[in-house]
């Protein structure tokens, strides 16, 4: 009976600690939001949180285990909420207003969304980004797979090739962009006398960005293919060899099916990355050159990410930029979720 009383007292102390902690946190937050400059609100918040966590931790109850789990999850959940969830919610809200980065004066509803889809530059950016994404995905994967085959074959110096193809990926996109801009503007016009810079022609400029992007990214994807190909069991390859399969047959009937999963990963990785292309686009062309469409001049290589950036930063229309960013997010989310679904299906089959 005495022990029971002690437990009871102990529980009360814990509950009091928790209550005091909550009170401290709430008053600290109230102080903060009311604009008070008092210096105690920081320490108060800290002490409150410590008291709260300590109280929960020591609280004897049936669900002690779950409570502990929550306490340990708290730092992660807190960080995620503060850095992702809250800004995301605010972003959705701002996209419905005329926010300029500092404040908003009115609530616009869906006007930003309507404006966005009815402006030609955005629709054009959308189309050109899709074209770029598809081309880039095909090129990168094709090249990367061929390089991977080369680097897993018995060719002399394959480790050197492997490193060499990977190096472009280690250089930052902005640096690469300016280097290649120089090459397109200065070197190519000397190599092909009388020609004008590729970056001055609307279609060739897109090809130029594709070239650089493929060159930069193929080495990285190659590494993933290399690991895939290396994981193909040797015994199967030997068995096929004994059965008299030639190299092409081995590739088509054994290697490719065995690394189907790698293909899914690589295709979606390039898909998402090409869609998000910004740094090369920014450094090589920054949207130039011009293209005449329906009697209006527009920038021919302004991809979605760059379009969003320019809308928010140079036009100072943060709300519209936020709206475009949100649509951008939804598209990327759809792509990524598709990938997850496909992979799950594959895993079940395996």
């Amino acid at each position: 009976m005495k022990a029971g009383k002690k437990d009871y007292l102990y529980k009360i102390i814990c509950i009091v600690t928790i209550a005091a902690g909550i009170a401290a946190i709430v008053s600290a937050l109230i102080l903060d939001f009311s604009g008070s400059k008092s210096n105690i609100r920081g320490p108060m918040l800290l002490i409150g949180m410590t008291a709260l966590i300590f109280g929960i931790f020591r609280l004897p109850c049936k669900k002690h285990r779950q409570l502990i789990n929550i306490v340990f999850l708290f730092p992660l959940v807190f960080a995620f909420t503060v850095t992702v969830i809250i800004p995301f919610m605010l972003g959705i809200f701002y996209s419905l207003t005329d926010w300029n980065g500092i404040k908003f004066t009115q609530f616009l509803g869906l006007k930003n969304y309507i404006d966005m889809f009815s402006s030609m530059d955005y629709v054009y950016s959308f189309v050109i980004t899709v074209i770029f994404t598809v081309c880039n995905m095909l090129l990168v994967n094709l090249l990367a797979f061929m390089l991977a085959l080369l680097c897993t074959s018995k060719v002399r110096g394959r480790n050197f090739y492997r490193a060499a193809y990977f190096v472009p990926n280690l250089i930052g996109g902005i640096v690469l962009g300016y280097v290649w801009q120089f090459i397109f503007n200065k070197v190519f016009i000397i190599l092909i006398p009388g020609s004008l810079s590729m970056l001055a022609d609307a279609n060739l400029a897109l090809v130029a960005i594709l070239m650089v992007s493929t060159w930069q990214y193929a080495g990285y994807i190659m590494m993933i293919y290399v690991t895939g190909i290396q994981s193909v069991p040797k015994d199967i390859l030997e068995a096929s060899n004994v059965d008299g399969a030639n190299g092409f047959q081995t590739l088509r009937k054994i290697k490719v099916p065995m690394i189907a999963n790698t293909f899914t990963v690589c295709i979606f990785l390039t898909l998402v990355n090409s869609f998000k292309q910004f740094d090369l686009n920014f450094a090589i062309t920054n949207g130039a050159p011009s293209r005449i469409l329906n009697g209006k001049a527009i920038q021919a290589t302004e991809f979605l990410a760059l379009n969003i950036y320019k809308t928010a930063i140079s036009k100072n229309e943060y709300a519209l930029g936020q709206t475009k960013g949100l649509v951008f997010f939804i598209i990327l989310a759809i792509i990524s979720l598709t990938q997850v679904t496909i992979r799950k299906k594959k895993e079940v089959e395996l």
Partner: protein
Amino acid sequence: MIKWKKIVAIAIAAVMTLSLTACGSNTSSSDNTADNTASGTEVSDSSAESTAAESSTESGGGEIRLVNGKIEIDEQLKTYAEKYEEKTGVKVNIESLGGGVDISGTLKGYLAAGNMPDMYVFGGEGDYNTWKDYMADLSDQPWVSDTDVAYKTSDGKVVGFPYAVEGYGITYNADILEKAGVDPASLTNINAYKEAFEKIDSMKSVLGITAVCSVAAESGQMYWSTGNHIFGSYLAQGLDRSDTTYIDMLKKGETDTDRMTQFADFLELLFQYADKNTLISGTYDDQLALWAQGKTAFITQGNWIDPSLPDYNVSFDSGIAPLAIMEEDTDGILADAPSWWAVYNEGGNKQLCYDFMNSLASTEEGAECLVTDCGMISPFASTMVEPTTPLAVSLMGWVKAGKTYSWQWSKMPEGIALNATGVIFESFAKGDIDKEQFVTMMGTAVSDYAK
């Protein structure tokens, strides 16, 4: 044993939460310097001296912070700030943003974080509209009567401190012009330019040049040269400094077809005699190198290229000629303050900021800092220090003679050159569209953008 584990677990959990909350709650602190460097921008802030800052507050001098938008004069301003601290005991922290950093965006971040500088740079009407609620009224400052280029709002209030005057037109290589027998003073209308261009073009091999003009009209990185600067002549050339006819029309989404046609005539002439590769795909460096190496006679840039000239070992003399787009004589170049400093109206050190501005505007050391060290033109009439670099001297001549037109282009809707008009200039330069199309497309682009 188990008890120890428990204690360790608690300690870890506590430390994790503590470290998180410590990040979140520390916004009231007045120690700005540590936060600035964390912002990820190219801040050349003097955060290393933060300990010195603390000691100076003890001496009662106070401390102010200035966000400067011209990275080129960062060193010079810091040197001046040191001298100023010795004299007055007030520490001025210069924080320079530049090299492609989005200044307005960075400032928005500072404002949201409660970390606004006491003084900050802003660059025209767009910025003013964004920041007008955070600017102190400077109308009663002593330097206001000493300058023509302070930032005045539509109701006549002064909110921007000018720290420089910049000017542009068509900058020429005086040696080449002299050899070709062209008098730069005669370049005051489109026909004079036509004759001069033709004459120089016919003597290219004699003069050792590859083209007459160095112009860059690519829309991705040179939009500001065409869409802002050159287009500025359409808005202001030949007009009184207070005449806002064409900029007012543009803000309403209208353009004057006659004037635009005249402007297009001049543009066509300029593009026709420009180096083709630089015109359609050149960067600023390409454009500058071409002219500075003596391969062209003209360049469409202003006095800001002065500091770059020693890099090319430029030995020739140079000057600025008017962007005379019309048939009538317009004898003057476009000169104005490129940006201004505003005082944060909710900052606690407003008086210290006013004092610092006054010292820059009215003292000998201030003038030396702006003119001699930074290589700029002082916007203040009372300044006696003379510039030494060639284009600054030329600009000074125009300013002294009162032959300047204002930079109405800085009142255009934000981002119009990058997002709407720059591409039209590029298309025209490439020959994709003709003069009539240029005029109509400029008209529709402006009306679409201004809406």
